[in-house]
């Protein structure tokens, strides 16, 4: 009884004073890109050199690591460390890195790998290491033909990007654009396709007809674009793999601003007749055409939401060009932009959370993003003339084109492709052989 009472008292007195756990809130951190060391890949003894475009690539391991390094640098999320500072050689590093050596140069992640080329087959294996924790994060191997070595480098970049950021990569992708040559008043425009880093450029048309607004299908290797057919602008469909192209629909007027639906089964475009422009869709399987908008004003530049339930477009139904959102059947039209200036070329992000647009205000052109309800408008970049944003497949980077000022004769004119990420800080010129405009980003080639 006595013991019970003592215990009872003890409990009452001390129940309130449980051992406190010290908690510290860390609400700030370092926003610098992650320092990563990309060690040159070790080439297995006996591996052959690679011949490409009459050039012999001697150290393929180093070339692959350079491509990976450049991808990371352009992303703005990583800081690839200089190779001169590496202490450990690739032949040892690919087996088991000495983490102390890599910690010395402040690397937090390390990429090592090995390439073997035998009997016209290239096998590349890589490992991603957490230098601080001294553990392996991911290890994969790929086999392909030696010509494909750049793609292997892009796929490896994607895998590392995914492991280190938690979102899918965008390096194993291609960009279709309009290649431009000649004077400003007499431009030759050809359809061109290249890897996202500007390599492997191929021209898809000869340049004898004007081409505009090429757009990739999000599902396959189909491209839709605008070209002239019997002096009328018409929407075309091109299969990149087979080279087969066809006119989409037989409209008694001009069709333009085409874009694919998210499932790749429909094309949405504008059709203009008698000074009025409306939005139409065409089912690519059944060829059934459907009218989506019906208004006396100009409705154009349609773009589907990734779930296919909504369409954003621009219209001057309020008197000035603004962006609107409606259901995919054309009902429930709502204006979402109310800011000063003109808004155009809306493109829905593949993630669905944002709409990219071009804004013109006081003679300046802006590329910006906003939420689908029109809130949270953010202008990412400002310039003399720039437009046509297109999203990377992970919805993190935008590609667009920018033109420079020129005199009356067109001197000083140039059109270049640029990219910018959602932070607005990582703006980069994409090097192309010729001038370029109207870029469109493909989905990931290796899904």
């Amino acid at each position, binding site marked *: 009884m006595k013991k019970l009472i003592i215990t009872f008292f003890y409990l009452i007195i001390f129940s309130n004073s449980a051992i406190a756990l010290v908690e510290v809130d*860390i*609400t*700030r951190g370092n*926003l610098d890109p992650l320092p990563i060391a990309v060690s040159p890949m070790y080439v297995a003894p006996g591996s052959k050199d690679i011949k490409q475009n009459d050039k012999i690539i001697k150290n393929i391991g180093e070339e692959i690591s350079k491509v990976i390094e450049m991808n990371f640098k352009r992303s703005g*999320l990583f800081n690839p460390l200089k190779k001169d500072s590496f202490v450990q050689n690739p032949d040892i590093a690919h*087996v088991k890195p000495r983490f102390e050596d890599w910690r010395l140069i402040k690397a937090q992640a390390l990429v090592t790998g090995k390439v073997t080329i035998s009997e016209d087959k290239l096998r590349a294996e890589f490992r991603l290491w957490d230098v601080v*924790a001294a553990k392996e994060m991911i290890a994969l191997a790929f086999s392909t033909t030696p010509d494909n070595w750049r793609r292997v480098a892009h796929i490896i970049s994607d895998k590392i990007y995914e492991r*280190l950021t*938690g979102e899918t990569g965008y390096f194993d992708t291609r960009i279709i654009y309009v290649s431009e040559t000649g004077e400003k008043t007499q431009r030759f425009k050809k359809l061109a396709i290249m890897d996202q880093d500007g390599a492997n450029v191929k021209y898809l048309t000869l340049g004898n007809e004007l081409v505009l607004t090429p757009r990739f299908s999000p599902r396959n290797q189909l491209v839709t674009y605008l070209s002239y057919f019997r002096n009328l602008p018409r929407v075309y469909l091109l299969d990149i793999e087979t080279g087969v192209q066809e006119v989409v629909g037989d409209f008694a007027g001009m069709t333009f601003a085409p874009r694919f639906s998210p499932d790749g089964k429909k094309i949405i475009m504008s059709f203009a007749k008698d000074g009025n422009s409306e939005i139409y869709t065409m089912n690519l399987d059944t060829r059934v055409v459907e009218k989506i908008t019906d208004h006396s004003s100009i409705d154009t530049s349609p773009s589907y939401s990734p779930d296919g339930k909504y369409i954003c477009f621009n219209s001057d139904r309020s008197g000035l060009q603004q962006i609107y959102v409606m259901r995919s059947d054309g009902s429930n039209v709502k204006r979402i932009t109310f800011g000063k200036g003109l808004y155009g070329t809306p493109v829905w992000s593949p993630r669905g959370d944002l709409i990219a647009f071009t804004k013109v205000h006081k003679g300046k052109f802006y590329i910006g993003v906003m939420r689908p309800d029109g809130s949270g408008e953010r202008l990412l970049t400002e310039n003399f003339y720039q437009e046509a944003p297109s999203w990377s497949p992970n919805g993190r980077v935008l590609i667009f084109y920018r033109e420079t000022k020129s005199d009356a004769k067109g001197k000083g004119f140039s059109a270049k492709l640029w990219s910018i990420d959602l932070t607005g800080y990582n703006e980069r010129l994409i090097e192309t052989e010729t001038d370029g405009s109207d870029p469109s980003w493909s989905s990931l080639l290796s899904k």
Partner: protein
Amino acid sequence: MSKSIFLSLTFHTLMIILTALTLPFMLRAPIDLPPILTIDLIQITDVTSIPFAAKATKTLEKIKKKEEERVVSKQAPPSEKKKEKPDRIPLPDDLNKEKKQIVKKKQNPEEVKEQIRQASEFEKKELFDPNQIAALIDKSKEDTAETLKKKKKLTQSSVETTFANALTLSQEDALKAQIFGCWSLPLGLPYQENLLVRIKLKLKPDGTVLRSEILDHARMNRPGQGFYKVLAESALRAIRICQPLRVPPTGYEKWKDLQLNFDANEMLKG
């Protein structure tokens, strides 16, 4: 008669003491209430021991609620079996590592994973021996006790986290400043998600980390939460880079168990 008077007196006295002791406890104002405006000489630690930022408190409460719900749920725990990737290349050291792990398990049966232990018990049940009923009953008691223990543990931890810190403002600031410099925030995080990682640390007196544990570990393997794994890894990396942590030279007992709440929400959402 005298016995009953004695008992009555004893219990009445007991009741009075109890009331005197418990009433102030019941009337004690919650931590969140504004301080009373009286001027008094107080210890600096009483002022500086602010539990955590308002934003983090809200997020924590939400998480705790979720945690409680998760404990009640009868769903099976997610499989701990590591996915084997077909393309994974085995390292020369991997085989040795595996061997070492097996030896470890034999030496320390306590370290055998819960799932493995359950599997072996299941096998035992299949080979049911009527002569061992007593032993089985004892075992079931042990199981119940263990479950109760676990529940108690959870309740205790939820109580603990509501208490104030044992570091002064300057000590906390020194620790924060040290970790700020070490934490490389992953830049691709989705800003609309909950970006709070709670890590519990067991520290040595010199500030080196003896053990670290991610409190919402299960979230790392949930679908669509890949970013959380990345965030948690970055936080762990920060702790490793920073150690030994800048801890006070005295009062080891107070801070030997330390919880760091890495909150990226504020930075990314602004």
